[in-house]
């Protein structure tokens, strides 16, 4: 619609990288914190991750149990809807495929509502958690995941905007319909593909 903004050229540092989705900029080595709630102190002796809903066998893992599963790492880029992207970062944990394979989703399951210890929720199509695209992680660049970044354990779905990667994850409930989560009820997109700039409802 509108033409160029008078006098705006963009900064070389911000526009340098062709790997960025539209409207994103490279935040460099920084890792901004954006959350809507009080940072919780998750007690790992009490914490568990549950996969339930439309599955053959609702399954829970304790902190010890989940770390005993085969490990999996992600190396790549993450994209926040507030327009920063962090390139060439890494996380370690377990593939969500491993968890779903254990619980065995029913044929009618199409979506997942993910919940956190804080009550935060986010919704995703089941397909976005399948095929080696999603992890439950507890390390970031080789170190324990800090609390403010969702530690001790968070979801990681790096091909979608980062609010889908629920911090302090505790439950994934499989559904036969889409059910808006926290930000999705507050105006954000149900899928959140950064390459399509699906930031807000209706995008």
């Amino acid at each position, binding site marked *: 619609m509108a033409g160029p903004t008078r006098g705006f*050229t963009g900064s070389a540092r911000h*526009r340098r990288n062709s790997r960025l989705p539209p*409207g994103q900029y490279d935040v460099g080595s920084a890792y*901004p*914190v954006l*959350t809507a709630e009080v940072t919780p102190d998750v007690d790992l002796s009490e914490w568990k991750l549950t996969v339930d809903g439309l599955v053959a066998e609702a399954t829970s893992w304790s902190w010890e149990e989940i770390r005993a599963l085969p490990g999996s790492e992600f190396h790549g880029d993450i994209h926040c809807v507030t327009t920063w992207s962090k390139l060439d970062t890494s996380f370690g944990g377990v593939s969500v495929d491993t968890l779903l394979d254990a619980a065995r989703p029913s044929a009618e399951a199409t979506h997942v509502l993910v919940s956190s210890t804080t009550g935060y929720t986010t919704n995703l199509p089941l397909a976005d958690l399948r095929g080696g695209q999603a992890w439950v992680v507890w390390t970031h660049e080789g170190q324990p995941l800090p609390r403010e970044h969702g530690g001790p354990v968070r979801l990681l779905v790096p091909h979608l905007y980062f609010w889908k990667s629920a911090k302090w994850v505790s439950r994934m409930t499989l559904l036969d319909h889409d059910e808006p989560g926290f930000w999705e*009820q*507050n*105006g954000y997109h149900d899928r959140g593909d950064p390459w399509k*700039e699906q930031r807000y409802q209706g995008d």
Partner: protein
Amino acid sequence: MTEPRSGIPWRDATVRHVSHPVPRAVQLRLEVPDRPEHLPGQHYVVRLTAEDGYRASRSYSLASTAADPLVELFVERLDDGEVSPYLADEVRTGDHLEVRGPIGRWFTWSGETPALAVGGGTGVVPLVAMLRHSIEIGRPDLLRVAAFAGSPEELPYAGELSAAGALLGFSRDRRGLEALAGPRLSAARDRPTGRVRGEDLEALLAGGQTAYVCGSAGFAESASSLLVTLGVAPEQIRVERFGPTG
């Protein structure tokens, strides 16, 4: 880039006022055609387009209320940023900016329930919208505000906050405090310089309120943790953190 099909459209805003009330920041008042009403606490996205089509967009909280004929943004200039230096240094009255909003339905206050709003630095901007709203609807009694900055000269909207009875706290020095007027200034004078403390917030707790905390990640973490320590339920605390995102 595809335009949104049925979502919030981009609008062509005209800059009507530009001022620099505190160092390293700019206040912009924009005329936005056909804009929907917004709630205090919501933000707008500003999008800049270069000659070659390169675009950059950032979100900024509104200081204005729905009743204001213009939309007021207050933007801190981040030296290594991309959008804020342009807004602070380049934008003139009469310029056009693409904007989209209002965005965010969580960090909002409708003015119907008791609220405590705690802001640090430019984190006070959405709180100013809440304050103005509380006055417009005749319910200033429902809202208590605490505003923190390095010094009075660095606090956005210091005069307006102080006049409305906000508690002010300064981490470094009190230079500029003598220029302010308001009912709680003696507390600001007597308070030792330093970061937000439990006793600052304790005095403002009424019970049953929703707390709104806005500021840098560090400030928001401190203030929200203090509120939990003081007995406010985490479910009653809404936090908006912002980082150096330019």
